[in-house]
């Protein structure tokens, strides 16, 4: 019995003499990025921005003390929640119906500006309810804790941009005015408005028999309703519709990851899931890195000297805001579809 007590005592005391096995939280662990300027209306993830400096993971993160940068007064704007579509399964690009795509996403409620509790990543969920630039936005602190201690990172700055429903976007993100170039830097009254242009290759300008330049075609994004479709339209220099069938080499079935294709003489409409593209993932509907949808319209004709020419026009774009969108290709010089 005596021995037992002795052993017991020794065991307890030994462990007591040793320091506790605590996590390590480096005082030099930092956020690599402290100013966040997401664009509202789309979900933005700030990933791998916390350098743990070899601290023990997971670390618990919390947003504290949200306030307006301008006045310093506390703000509850970041506590607002949004209904956000979140992914449950991976998008592959091979889904065969809208239902199949939507089955992979569910609606969840999230705070507008969310910190991931174990990684310190920030998610700005798609919303419109924050003070946008040029407002100086919000300041907030982040508390990082594990059993080894607590670090507080002060004065991280969130200054979102107003919503840009699509990209490429020809309006200034802060002022909302159309972007322009000023040929004479001393005179702001002379300017040229900027438009989006598609890529053009091998198309002949019907007016002057020369190659059609990219800036002869403007791309106009036009929201017409609150459905979920995309319509491609083509207009000639007189704003008259061009029959999409003129682009006779275009694989309309696989142009977009859309369904229920409606082809008329004025446009081609797809029922699609938003945003476009659904995520940054390379599929046959996207550009090389999967960041933008990619469409290419082409046609073939017999050119000068009986040489067959293939003309094509392509565009990489995003549409973030759900709706019935028209993408209009406005030819300011008519392309030549006819054979020579």
């Amino acid at each position, binding site marked *: 019995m005596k021995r037992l007590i002795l052993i017991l005592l020794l065991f307890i005391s030994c462990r007591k003499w040793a320091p506790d096995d605590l996590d390590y939280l480096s005082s030099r662990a930092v956020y690599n990025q402290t100013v966040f300027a997401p664009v509202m209306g789309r979900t933005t993830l700030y990933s791998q921005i916390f350098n743990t400096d070899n601290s023990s993971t997971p670390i618990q993160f919390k947003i504290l003390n949200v306030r307006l940068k301008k006045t310093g007064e506390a703000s509850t704007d970041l506590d607002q929640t949004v209904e956000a579509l979140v*992914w449950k399964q991976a998008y592959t690009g091979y889904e065969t119906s809208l239902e199949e795509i939507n089955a992979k996403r569910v609606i969840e409620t999230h705070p507008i500006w969310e910190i991931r509790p174990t990684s310190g990543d920030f998610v700005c969920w798609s919303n419109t309810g924050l003070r946008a630039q040029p407002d100086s936005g919000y300041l907030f602190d982040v508390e990082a804790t594990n059993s080894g201690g607590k670090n507080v990172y002060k004065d991280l700055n969130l200054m979102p941009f107003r919503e840009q429903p699509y990209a490429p976007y020809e309006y200034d993100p802060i002022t909302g005015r159309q972007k322009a170039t000023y040929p004479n830097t001393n005179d702001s009254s002379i300017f040229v408005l900027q438009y989006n242009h598609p890529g053009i290759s091998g198309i002949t300008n019907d007016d002057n028999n020369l190659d059609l330049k990219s800036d002869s075609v403007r791309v106009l994004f036009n929201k017409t309703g609150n459905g979920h479709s995309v319509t491609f339209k083509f207009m000639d220099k007189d704003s008259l519709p061009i029959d999409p069938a003129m682009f006779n080499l275009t694989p309309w079935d696989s142009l977009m990851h859309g369904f229920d294709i409606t082809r008329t003489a004025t446009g081609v409409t797809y029922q699609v899931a938003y945003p476009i593209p659904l995520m940054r993932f390379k599929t046959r509907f996207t550009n090389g890195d999967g960041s933008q949808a990619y469409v290419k319209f082409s046609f073939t004709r017999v050119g000068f000297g009986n040489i067959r020419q293939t003309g094509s026009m392509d565009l990489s774009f995003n549409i973030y805001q759900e709706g019935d969108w028209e993408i209009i290709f406005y030819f300011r010089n008519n392309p030549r579809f006819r054979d020579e």
Partner: protein
Amino acid sequence: MKQSILLLFCLLTVVFLQAQDKVTVTGQVRDGVTNEPLVGVSIMAGSPLKAVGITNASGQFSASVLPNSPLVFRYIGYSDYRITLKDKRELVIRLAVTENKLNETVIIGYQKKTREVTTGSAVIVGGKEIQDVPVSNVEQLLQGRVAGLNIQNNTGAPGARGMIQIRGLSNITVTGSGNDAFLSPTSPLYVIDGVPIDADANFEYGYQSAGPGVSPMSLIPPEDIESLEILKDAQATALYGSRGAYGVILLTTRRGSSPIPLVRYTGNFFVNTPPGLRKTIGGAAERRLRLQQIYGSGNINDIYNITTTHFLADSLNPYYNNSTNWQDVFYQATYNQTHNINISGGDPKFNYKVDLGYYHENGVIRNTGFDRYSVNTNMLYQPNPKFRVFTTLSTQVGKRNKGDGNGLTQSGVAANAAASSLLPGPSFYQSTAGVLSSLDTKNDNKTANVRASLDVSYQLLKGLSLGSSVSYEYASNTEDRFIPAAAHGDFSQVYAYDDRKYTLYNRNTVSYFTTIKDKHNFFLSAFNEIYSKGFQAQVIQQEKTPNDQYQGPLGYDGYASLGGGLLDNYSKQHIASFAGTFSYNYKQKYVMDLSYRMDGTSSSGFEDPYSKNPAIGVRWNFNKENALSEKKWLTYGSLRGSWGQNIVPSGDIFAIYGTFDPRGTYNANQRLGINYSLLPNTTLQPTSTTQYNVGFEAGFFDSRLEVIFDAYYKTVKNLLRTKNLSNITGFDQITTNETSLIDYGYELTLTFRPLPRTSKVQWTVSVNAALNKDILTHLPNGARQLIEYDYSNSQNTLFRVGRNSLTNYLLKTQGVYATDADVPVDPATGQRYRTADGTYFKAGDPIFQDVDHNYILDNNDYVPAGNSQPLVTGGLQSYVNYKSWSLNLNTSYTLIRKILNNAFAERMQFLGDPYNPKAVADVGSVDYWTKDHTNAKYPNPFDYTRYSSIRPYRYDQTLIEEDGSYWKINTITIAYLLNRKFTNRYGVNSVRTYFTCNNLVTFSPYSGPNPENVSALGRDQSGGYPVPRTYNFGVNIEF
């Protein structure tokens, strides 16, 4: 002269005794088991006991005693034999070996004591227990025999040594990386016949050690060992303090004890067989598997590449149409022998011993082996009880063939044994350099060792004696290696290494012993100790000899000479120590030991070179209390406790004084500049351990059950670690003493003798277990955590205060993705879980835990995984003796330890590149993912196109971390003693034959070949030297 003194002594006794009307008793004293006559047994009679006689060379005695007087026969190492004389006048006495741990004589602090008055924790292993197994290094035979002595025989390389630790981890310094990560050894200090030996010599630099790499322990023939004593706690090791912090092992060699010279021959003839090697797919099956894998990828370029990869496409070419068993090329069974002749004789006044040993072992890897030639002598001269001289002279030569390995590992062999079976076998024409280099590299590596010692003591007055001991050891290591041109990129290479090392040691002692009123015993002693050690090594390395026959001498040529010269591991060290010790006991019931020691070492910072090391120990033999002394069931029982501190010098002069570098000349003046890499630390301390120990010892039922229990708490302080400095200091790094750790644990040894003493069958079973936990308590700069990133295979080591000192820091593998849908998806972006380079995980890939839930596998996902150090170690021994037969069994076990199966991972990784002519592991036994078998343990090894990103069989994951527990039957020995009457007819005293099997079988859940054959950090290297199984036939002949 001797005889006449003896005669005189006898006569006087007789005269003296006859005066009291005595009778003469004659007879013989023999060993109860071996029947050998015992020489020098004291015969005592009367009350109080007085010596009345002593047995002569043939064990005969004659004594005059009072009739009806009780007689006691007393002999060291044997139980007292009591007999009351009746009418008998002719006696044959058979003494039984003491099987009572209390009566063992232990040596602590250079003094002999009985265990009864020992306050420290010490264990004795008799030489006989370890002598029937031929091994190059006697240390490995201690495995499993002593609780708290953790020995892992992790290399089978002849002449090398495994890992040895007393009471857990004492160092966390890891050098090298990847498979070659090497935990600095913390071997106990060996003291051979009073002379301290550095057993870690030649191993300080890990796997990169130059020279033959022969451990000093490999130079000791086991046949010459009388006993080994393992001192574990701080009190026991206190007086070996200047290097005793990691424990002390005392090795006593045989002494002469027979007036008639005894010649003892021991011969062993043994076969080493390579253990089970790794299963490999060979020939057509290998090609088929590779092609299937490539076609499976569906990539047209890869399929096209088959045609340009000849060993895949050209199946009808005899060059590629093979099924070579590459492992067989390198591994072999070998036949080996040892011979040992031990000549000894003398009596307590003058005795001598000469031991001649020869050991020859060929390694199971071809072109490796170890030969040992040794001559060890000692001589004791004690003309009168006051004056005593003991000298030893040992010379040993170890000759070691390492092939092209480095002594511990054979990475060249591993690389080539893992070649594709489709390639043709080795031949000179093929010029497969690796094979030629392994098999044709010529080695001539020698370690020569000379050790001489002289120990003189003189008793000035009764109880007051002076003693002095001097020893000198000189060791020279040379390595000559010639690599033929064909094995070395068409240019031969000559490499010559030599070093020399000396140790001069001196100890001077004054001691005083007195007893007051037969109750109070005092012992007081003081001594000083001086070490002087030096080491210097140099290398010559030349290339491009004219041809392979011309191997030297070589001239100098700036182009062909590839460096060398003096190596930078020069060292010279001095230690001066002063120590005092005081012991007191009351009727041997209450015992107290105090000691104090000051050690100054030249490797401590000069601001405070002396470290002070006190120790205290107490013991209470409670069986001597009146209440218990009469109890029959209790043979003995005691409680003891101790506390003390010890050091090990660990720094070097460069860390203390800094370094000046020659910087060429300026204006014809030699320039010297400060080396800014290491900032001198003038306050450097030696590593010190402080240890508390509580022990309990008891014997029950006439010692048929014996228990020894120890609990300890050990602090290892002042561990050296080099830390980086801020660049404003101007220096890069500094070595400091800021690291420390603790070990605590329990040790239990139980000994059973189930059959009564009188039984014809004698059976002893001994079980021991030791539990040791280590906890890191301090890191440089007060850091809580330090990660040692491994840049060769990412098997990082985590040092975190408060947990076990060496933690694997790995990715946690939680299974295998059965389907693509199982891969988690980032809800915000829809991105699947992916690697840092953006490759998505998919079905068949391992599930690496995403610790921070950011859906990216990165450095933040490493988790503290297993402990590479074992938690429980121990062993079980059984010894059965029936008439002339005996059966000896020794087993050992290690429990709860994590091993990283790198060899398996490496072989599976080979599957990740079907174009690489490497061996294809036999995946048939591996439970891996396929489309039809989704619920698998291991990931899909064949998806080679994504292999470089996913790396499913990467080293840094817990998938390959396995439990390394094992229970090993180390040795079984069956011995038979030939009938003495028969052998005596031929003038032979005794003949004993035995059959031994060493490293018989290991039971383990581990999937690799041998859970013990891993590095000290628990990594199963493919380059590890397999531990062979040995079958031995041996014979002992005594003339």
